[in-house]
């Protein structure tokens, strides 16, 4: 197991490095002047000496390798830099916001997994039946709908026309603090939209995997022993299909992150998504680079953990590197 971790890290760490170099070069090639960014509107009234002073302080005019190493050294020490779009330390921004994004993604993942395991298994139970065809048609249809469009449609129907749920935000307008029922009420629409938009891939995968495992001998044997259909379906077929499915969930996380950026923006949730967009609009390199790298590291770790869980759960599986 330790060997697996070491081998994985041997690839992941260089790639993270390469990504950070690529990002840094892009940032360096960017036409945005960080000093002007930092000063904001004051840059227009500021003298060139003052701007130069800021540039000197930040070492913007140093050779690129020097700048890169300084940036990387700070990153490793936990200093992610100063966000020019939010005028706040990047670490603070991420600490303030990451929780809400994790909450959104976490709840969505739980909903998607439960829903898709149920729907996919039932669809596989009678392949080609009415439910199966219905699920597949719905999955293909949803898969071609941009998540932000789905979100706007949901707002139009459930927030504006029916008035069941709020159209955005995390708390009521008059609320002075966050209370659980209020937040839950506000999260219903975003979670549902994100879950539905992510569901097709999961449902179709579960359906195919369960249909496949229904053919396997031990499932057939279970049926031959006269076990109830439900026991065979969920206790044997689904259980066989479950493990490979769980590892693939890890590979789907990047999609989920992208979806959450869009959903957060539509529903104006105070997560990392909205901040990334704001940072992108303001050309805020430190914040954007930090968010991208941190997310990547989290996703890579999650992938590694699911793989390790897989090897622990299924002794037949050995992961090479």
């Amino acid at each position, binding site marked *: 197991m330790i060997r697996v971790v070491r081998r994985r890290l041997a690839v992941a760490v260089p*790639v993270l490095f390469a990504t950070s170099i690529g990002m840094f070069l892009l940032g360096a090639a960017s036409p945005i002047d960080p000093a002007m960014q930092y000063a904001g509107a004051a840059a227009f009234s500021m003298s060139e000496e003052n701007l130069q002073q800021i540039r000197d302080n930040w070492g913007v005019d140093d050779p690129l390798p020097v700048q890169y190493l300084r940036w990387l050294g700070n990153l490793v020490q936990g200093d992610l830099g100063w966000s020019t779009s939010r005028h706040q330390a990047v670490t603070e921004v991420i600490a303030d916001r990451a929780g809400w994004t994790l909450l959104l993604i976490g709840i969505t993942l739980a909903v998607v997994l439960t829903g898709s395991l149920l729907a996919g298994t039932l669809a596989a139970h009678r*392949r080609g039946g009415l439910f199966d065809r219905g699920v597949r048609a719905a999955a293909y249809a949803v898969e071609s709908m941009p998540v932000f469009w789905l979100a706007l449609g949901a707002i139009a129907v459930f927030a*504006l026309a029916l008035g069941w749920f709020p159209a955005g935000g995390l708390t009521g307008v008059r609320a002075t603090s966050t209370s659980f029922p209020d937040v839950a009420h506000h999260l219903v629409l975003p979670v549902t939209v994100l879950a539905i938009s992510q569901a097709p891939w999961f449902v179709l995968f579960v359906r195919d995997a369960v249909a496949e495992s229904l*053919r396997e001998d031990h499932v057939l044997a279970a049926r031959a022993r006269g076990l109830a259909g439900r026991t065979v379906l969920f206790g044997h077929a689904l259980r066989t299909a479950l493990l490979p499915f769980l590892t693939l969930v890890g590979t789907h*996380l990047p999609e989920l*992150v992208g979806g959450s*950026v869009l959903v957060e923006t539509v529903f104006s949730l105070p997560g990392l998504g909205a901040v990334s967009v704001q940072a992108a609009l303001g050309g805020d390199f430190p914040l954007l680079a930090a968010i991208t790298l941190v997310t990547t590291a989290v996703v890579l770790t999650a992938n590694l953990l699911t793989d390790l869980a897989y090897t622990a759960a299924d002794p037949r599986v050995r992961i090479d590197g």
Partner: protein
Amino acid sequence: MAETAVTTTTPGRAGLFRRPRFRAGTPVAALVLGVAVGAALLVPMIAPLDQSAVALGRAALPPSLPHPGGTDDLGRDVLHRSIYGLRVSLLVGVVAALAATVIGGVVGSLAGLLGGWVDRVLMRVVDTISALPHLLLGIFIVAMLRPGLGAVILSIGLTHWLSTARIVRSELLSLRTRPFIDAAIAGGAGRTRVLTRHLLPHVLPKIALATTLMIPHAVWHETSLSFLGLGLPPHLASLGNMINDGQRSLLTGAWWASIVPGAVIVVVTLAIAALAARGRDHLDPRVRAELNL
């Protein structure tokens, strides 16, 4: 005897050999795509759009005969602008898909042809990069290059080449072991000849299919970026920009301003996906056709 009894009574078994009945009608898909592309190409000639024209007198009109898609909060015809938006999106989509194909094709060929440690390293890199959230990466690229047409295309190209690289590599790896390649080499064909006359003709259809399937992805990426305000310039009629603009009108009840351009994306995506699925059926009958988005 017992064998046949099992196969006929097990629902899982019976269902497996039945071909999936759900078929996206190929002719319908072709027609829809034809109409959409035709409109995107011809409408600008017949009815050119003034991108900056506003008519506040007829703002936020619901869909009607003169304005089938309604008008937005600045009185601009939503359907007319959607067609223009589709034109831009398809243009970006095709160019970016080609860019992604070139990058993916080169990496995949290197891995598939050279094999060995080059293959192992390249594929590990591909695996690891696919663990990056590509929308965030795309946002980063666009933000650093300043939003615009070129930045959007580059952002798509740099984040979408992984699947093509995998396809090209696995195709080349499986081709390399086929007897006809050995025969060609035994017959005295040089590297270049094997590559251009024997390998390339087999890989090209797969690449073409991958590129086609990439177009909806690219359109989506562009639309997402534009929707976030990070894509094409905001005054330009693009589907993402329109959906973004439509957000304002949504709160006043004018749902069509954002729903209509989105519906255009959905319809075109479905049509391309259905056609590509049929194309895959045709290329590789062993693989059951699935819309793979």
